[in-house]
């Protein structure tokens, strides 16, 4: 077996820091997509409860000490931080750990930066901490999770990591230049 070097999706690209915003890479740990079979959503939720998680409502996340369960689309959630157990007969499971680049955008200007790329109402009263959305980031499909008042986690396909970092960096620098 060849000795392979483990590299994160945004290796050498981050962090990027501008006045009011900083972009770093998050390491969410294992990522498993969970798509319950027809009629098995309640049973899936019970199985996830064993890990302190549950089935998220539309546009929400379930956050537990051990991990998170993010709504990721119609009938799909991403469990991250741990590998869910006991779901084999209840849901379609896919290991997506290496499929996503996860960026953390923080700071007083974080929402303003994201607003340049993402056509969502990002005001905290509408997109509050704990909320999750699938939305375009530029032309990329993304998952957004607002983890705090001034903190967002941005998930994009791993193949888009370089483009996502570039687009966010341009938005951060342009916003900083306005002073």
């Amino acid at each position, binding site marked *: 077996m060849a000795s392979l070097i483990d590299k994160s999706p945004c290796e050498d690209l981050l962090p990027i820091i501008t006045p009011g915003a900083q972009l770093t890479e998050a390491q969410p740990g294992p990522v498993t997509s969970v798509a319950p079979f027809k009629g098995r959503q309640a049973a899936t939720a019970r199985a996830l409860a064993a890990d302190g998680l549950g089935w998220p409502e*539309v*546009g929400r996340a379930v956050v537990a000490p051990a991990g998170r369960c993010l709504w990721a*689309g*119609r009938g*799909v959630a991403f469990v991250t931080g741990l590998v869910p157990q006991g779901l084999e007969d209840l849901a379609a499971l896919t290991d997506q750990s290496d499929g996503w680049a996860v960026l953390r955008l923080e700071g007083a200007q974080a929402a303003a930066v994201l607003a340049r790329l993402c*056509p969502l109402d990002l005001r905290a009263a509408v997109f509050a901490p704990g909320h999750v*959305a*699938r*939305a*375009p980031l530029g032309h990329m*499909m993304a998952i957004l999770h607002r983890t705090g008042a001034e903190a967002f986690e941005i998930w994009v396909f791993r193949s888009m990591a370089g483009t996502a970092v570039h687009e966010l960096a341009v938005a951060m620098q342009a916003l900083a230049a306005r002073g």
Partner: protein
Amino acid sequence: MRITCPLCGDRDRREFTYYGAADYLNRPGMGAPAEAWDAYLHLRDNPAGATRDLWYHEMGCAAWLVVNRDTVSHAVLSVRLVTDAQAEGGAA
């Protein structure tokens, strides 16, 4: 044009992909006559007014939607998940 996804809320129509008429939900049964298949594949209304289409929320939640819209005013009259529409009896 804006489409209100039942899951994601009010979104720009560029997040969605158009598929075709909602007639595609009314697939004939296995023993259906050739005329039924001909109608299913080829015959479409071309209304000046309310029309029903299938759209896919590609940049969002990946749900298939039945969009009822007005071809004259471009107003979107209603949006429902295909699964919900079918659960309430066919593609109506």
